[in-house]
């Protein structure tokens, strides 16, 4: 009942000049993602320019530990998969399935963040901080920005789960699910670049 006033959108085609608000928002979100891509591209570029400037300190080869990062990567990839399953549940109209898969997704995301924080703390503990040299400044900023995006995604999906349990599947919540899952896949794609270019290339 609470959202009965959203019903009229369904019949609003182009001819009256009304627009499908949910479609608009999805399109807007795609453009936002382009800007986010450029933001990450800038951070990657900065990292590449600076990644050999260690000012006499140890470089990527000495301080990165791949095994943990590989596990992290698997966790994040899996979470992308489960967020896909959430969308499938949505399409099947199953609220329970949807909420369930979203919960799994944010749990995996939280594990990923937990491991990243542990990695950062360990590095800092060993004396490798953002202050040490330009290479580490670039590293912490690039990877940290990705981590902040993931954390934001976790909060966002949590808020969405609450809304889903209140309102059920409506055009609005449906759009929100689509957008968060798009966002989540995007973060996954960015991570693949981080993994390949920062960690794999760094240790090789």
């Amino acid at each position, binding site marked *: 009942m609470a959202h009965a006033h959203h019903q009229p959108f369904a019949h609003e085609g182009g001819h009256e000049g009304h627009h499908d608000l949910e479609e608009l928002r999805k399109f807007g979100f795609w453009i936002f993602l382009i800007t986010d891509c450029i933001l990450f591209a800038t951070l990657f570029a900065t990292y590449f320019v600076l990644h050999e400037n260690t000012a006499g300190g140890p470089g990527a080869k000495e301080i990165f530990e791949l095994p943990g990062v590989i596990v992290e990567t698997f966790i994040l990839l899996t979470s992308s998969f489960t967020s896909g399953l959430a969308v499938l549940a949505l399409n099947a109209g199953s609220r329970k399935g949807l909420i369930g898969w979203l919960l799994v997704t944010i749990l995996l995301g939280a594990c990923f963040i937990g491991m990243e924080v542990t990695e950062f703390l360990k590095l800092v503990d060993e004396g490798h901080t953002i202050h040490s040299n330009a290479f580490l400044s670039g590293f912490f900023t690039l990877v940290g920005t990705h981590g902040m995006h993931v954390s934001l995604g976790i*909060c966002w999906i949590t808020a969405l789960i609450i809304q889903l349990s209140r*309102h059920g599947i409506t055009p609005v919540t449906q759009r929100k699910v689509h957008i968060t899952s798009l966002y989540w896949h995007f973060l996954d794609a960015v991570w693949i670049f981080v993994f390949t270019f920062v960690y794999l290339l760094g240790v090789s």
Partner: protein
Amino acid sequence: MRGGASVIDSIKDFVSWFFVTGDPLIYGADVAIVLTTVAIIFVLTYFRKWDWLWREWLTTVDHKRVGIMYIIASLLMLFRGGVDALLMRTQLAFPDLKFLSPEHYNEVFTTHGVEMIFFMAMPLMFGLFNIAVPLQLGARDVAFPFLNSLSFWLFFMGAMLFNMSFVIGGSANAGWLSYPPLSELTGSPGVGEDFYIWGVQISGIGSLMTGINFIVTIVKMRAPGMTWSRVPIFTWSVLSSCIAIIVAFPVLTVTLALVFLDRFLGAHFFTTDGGGNAMMYVNLIWMWGHPEVYIIVLPAFGVFSEVVAAFSRKRLFGYGSMVFAMLSISLLAYFTWLHHFFTMGSGADVNLFFAITTMIIAIPTGVKIFNWLFTMYRGRITFQTPMLWTLGFIPCFVVGGMTGVMLSAAPADFQFHNSYFLIAHFHQVLIGGAVFGYFAGLYYWWPKIFGFKLNEPIGKWAFWIWNIGFYVCFMPQYFVGLDGMTRRLSSYGWDKGWWAMNFTSTIGGFLMGLGFLFQVWQIAHSIKFMEKDTTGDPWGARTLEWSIPSPAPLYNFATIPVVTDRDDWWEEKERIAAGKAPKARPKLEPIHMPKNSPIPFIQAICWFTVGFGLVFHWLWIAIPGFIGIALTMLAHSFNYDTDYYIPVDEIKRTEAKAGRIV
């Protein structure tokens, strides 16, 4: 008690550090700020206007009102930036003058540049976007009205944060692009630089959101029948500007964040030690900065095209080539950034590439000038103020463009680099191109915004004084630049022989100030004496915004127009004049509208709080601000009650009041 005295001492220390002291100009400003604030509070309370201010303005999501707020704020900033300019020109009027100290001069030119680019040009441009684009598209709104209001408040709070540095903490002094190492802690240990970073960062995020908003609006919300070849040319210019915005502004966001990390966490992105690379900053800032000048100037080109066609009573000549030129500029602009540092040892090949891309940009620009001239050719031209500013722009931009090409030749740049030649060039392009363009747009759309025209005779005076002042101010600077005077110079000796040219230039500066005063008078006078425009189309113009009453009703269009031509409103008028029946209008239906929301305003205050806390490195202020941002975002996300319908009766009443039968 000893403790008591030392507490008082430390409070004194704090106050003298926190507030900027020791300069009569600044005490004057303090007094002025306090008095103005008191006066505003008094007036609002006395006339019981708080509620009105809150309901009608602070919480509004109506694009027309957001546009008006942008315009008012930017004109205030034009005043502030203009006062800065006159302070500098006063200092430079005579050799060895002791009006501004060198340190103060540094702060003033930095503030002036930042103020003019970020807080005057950008918002004035966004004001025009907001006023004109939805109306030109035949749309009822922008795509994201809530976001639109948030963008405005972010700009506003960013601007306020930056302006505060004048009286609290101290202003930035590292130039409007604040190159490191000057902008690092080593070069700028005070808080001025942090004010710069956060003021620009917060308003820049607003600009980025505006870019997204208008792209979606233009791509998705055109009236039925408005194919791409029927989109009004101003709207095309906005689209190309917004494309450049979404590509360029994320780079700015990152760049500012990185300098801040250097300053706040001791990172080493651009420092001279720890492996930092200051050249990386220069690359990044110009990757944003060069597109930025086109972001600013493209919409002005759009205005000129609109005005030239309307006041020549002819179709715009070369519409297709105009669109192509604007889109290609918005792409090319991204590949020219390096011409800003030809002299920094990038190597001959790199310099050659960027010299060529820069010169290529001159071609689409030249195409446009010819299109405007051909539009005027054999047109029935009327010389009202919007047209005057357009005509004034053309010679100005031709000269500015030519000196720009001179600068783009890498070898020549070694000579002109950082001289007054450059200052004259970019002011000629920025004032003659962007500011004249926005003025033309403001005069042109003023009756649409407020329902009455601005007084023409005073406007003509303002135009001529501005224009003469402009040439008197900037022409001598080319010569004094060639004569070796460098920019950012706070004083010079009699022996240099630069006195006469500088003095002339200062006179020109004050003439422009006088021109501005004429405009203020013009507005005040017109509010009092001008008659209401009942036609909705006082210029006899061509595009859809003129087909509705002025000021436009809340919902813009009672029924959404169906577009069949490029200059649809003009064609409709021709049809009616030829005795044919006007287009049939569909019957009225309830109109779906977004509800006002206090969240953008509150959230922007939280951003301000974060910025303020981080400027002083006081996390106890910044963290509550962050929490506020998060909470307001959640509040918005959980709010499902965001829209309502205007009933048909009310639409009928509104239209009847505006003299329309529907």
